[in-house]
């Protein structure tokens, strides 16, 4: 078991023949991901990496039966690509591209919701079910198979968190990088119940950062609905107000969205909150030995 994706999941790649799409599709194939083809307009009928290329997502879905799309198209085309996937009946779009206009994501997400398609990202490392299926750009080798679910806004903190967990002798069931943009697809609140329901997952690591209130919503949700142990780290305790810290969403405006506020809310919900990512592994170990 795992959440959202496993070794049976059929994946297509939008932006398949581009530089990034090619490189990462190759890496995913090497990891064992069942990539069944890709989409690049005007290259339909060709072969790439030994797989069929289609002009449209509809063609790709009809021929391959894919349910997930990994999206690498340039920022200006992300909104269009996500809506095309939703229209073609894709169930989950994993959007890796960084720098898509917020308004495009807003529109695309509204449409995807209507079409019942889930989105991970944009501007994220993707999703990985350890030793089964990697849809994204994370280094696969650090994700050993195990019982810890991981949800993170930040790409490299996903790696750091997974690494910490594995160093303590545990492993990862599924890890999801949700991205740090102002508007994202699946968030903690949607992913937490999936991990709660997954028999393979015994504990959950949640990595957040300053800006927005997704972590506050997650805290309220955990309090009411989650029985498995949760360990959390919020990046940006030392970030000054009003300064954007890299991610478009990582900015503290006024009194809202501070690390302190989020850490308090999570603690109050019974979550083990650590002050440094270096403490994640140990905290997981302690939480599971209770």
């Amino acid at each position: 078991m795992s959440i959202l994706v496993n070794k049976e999941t059929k994946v297509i790649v939008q932006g398949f023949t581009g530089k990034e799409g090619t490189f990462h599709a190759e890496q995913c194939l090497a990891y064992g991901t069942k990539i069944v083809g890709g989409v690049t307009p005007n290259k339909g009928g060709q072969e790439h990496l030994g797989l069929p290329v289609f002009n449209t997502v509809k063609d790709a879905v009809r021929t391959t039966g894919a349910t997930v799309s990994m999206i690498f198209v340039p920022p200006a085309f992300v909104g269009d690509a996500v809506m095309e996937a939703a229209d073609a009946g894709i169930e989950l779009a994993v959007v890796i591209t960084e720098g898509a206009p917020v308004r495009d994501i807003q529109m695309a997400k509204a449409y995807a919701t209507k079409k019942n398609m889930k989105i991970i990202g944009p501007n994220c490392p993707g999703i990985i079910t350890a030793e089964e299926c990697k849809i994204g750009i994370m280094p696969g080798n650090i994700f050993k198979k195990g019982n810890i679910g991981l949800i993170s806004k930040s790409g490299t903190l996903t790696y750091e968190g997974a690494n910490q967990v594995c160093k303590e002798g545990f492993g990862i069931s599924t890890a999801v990088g949700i991205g740090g943009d102002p508007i994202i697809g699946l968030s903690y609140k949607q992913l937490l119940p999936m991990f709660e329901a997954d028999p393979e997952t015994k504990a959950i690591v949640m990595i957040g950062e300053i800006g927005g209130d997704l972590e506050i919503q997650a805290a309220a949700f955990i309090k009411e609905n989650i029985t498995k142990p949760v360990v959390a780290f919020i990046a940006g305790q030392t970030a000054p107000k009003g300064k954007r810290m890299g991610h478009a969403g990582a900015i503290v405006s006024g009194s809202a969205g501070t690390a302190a506020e989020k850490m308090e809310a999570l603690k109050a919900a019974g979550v083990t909150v650590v002050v440094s990512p270096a403490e994640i592994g140990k905290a997981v170990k302690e939480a599971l030995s209770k």
Partner: protein
Amino acid sequence: MNIHEYQAKQIFAKYGVPTPRGIVANTPDEAVANAKELGGSIWVVKAQIHAGGRGLGGGVKLARSLDEVKTLASEIIGMTLVTHQTGPEGKLVQKVYIEEGADIKDELYLGIVLDRAKEMPVIMASTEGGMAIEDVAHDTPEKIIKIAVDPAIGFQGFHGRELVFGLGITNPDEQKKLINFASKLYKVYMDNDAEMIEINPLIKTGSGDFLALDGKMGFDDSALYRHPDIEAMRDLSEEDPDEREAGQYGLSYVSLDGEIGCMVNGAGLAMGTMDTINYMGGTPANFLDVGGKANAETVAKGFEIILKNPNVKAIFVNIFGGIVRCDRIANGILEATKLVDVHVPVIVRLDGTNAEEATEILKNANISNIIAATDLADGAAKAVKAAKGEK
């Protein structure tokens, strides 16, 4: 990206959002010429900087004669204006906006921002115009009306009615004017990929007209490629030169006031590294994300920018390679030591893609002030020690 008041008002005018008439000036003589062209007998001389709180800082003054326009413009152009948003160092004023005086009967607040929780733009309005809206939100939140507008349907009549009734506007003519104002402002917001629009105050004149007396706009940087006219409004003097230089190399840099320079890949890990340094008793000197395309040149540039800060006593390089390959970073560090005088200890932690090759590269180079660290905690501890001058 943010723009000046006079630029925001140019955009407003294009969409028919009413504003007082005004002309921007670079010199006191231009200011006088502008005042003459506008006519009338009363003008407002307004400093053009991005930060808010200009009025309280002495950057907005009323002139009752052309002589006074000249005197005030000479005082304001070239002054260093300090407001609650500029920081104590203030901001040099290079331009003033000369605006016709307005007959103010009432001051309102009107803004549009993205509501991240609702995932749509929200119109915010208040009868408490002219005050800092953060204070109103804090002290009397019931005095702020919020109206979310779903872009799928756009600004409808019911949004407008919610606005005017919420603000207690009962005169049908005034209701119509304000609804029209808000509807046009919504179009400004959507058409231009704005992140934020704020009009404080939005005034009602003696004759029942509504005018944007101020105007602030911020834009989604990711969407600027499709708005060359807005990109052209960028004022480089409003941006931190180090942050801008870093941006040209694909680095994201923010200076802070501590002692340990940080170079990290990924915004989250960069913040996590700062937090860990702080937790271990040190202070971070900066946020620096080298991004996913880091190479020898960008790493060298990163060192150069970090070392410009005289407070830096040690540098912590913390890389968890995913897309970024550690061997490239290692070569970048070697390159940097050749190009830049790296006079402080550099603590290096490299993990992930090609970490072993990278460790080998650094070991073979045998540079005395490079200290290897095994993981994040070890690296942060060593950096804190090094910054204190301990071995």
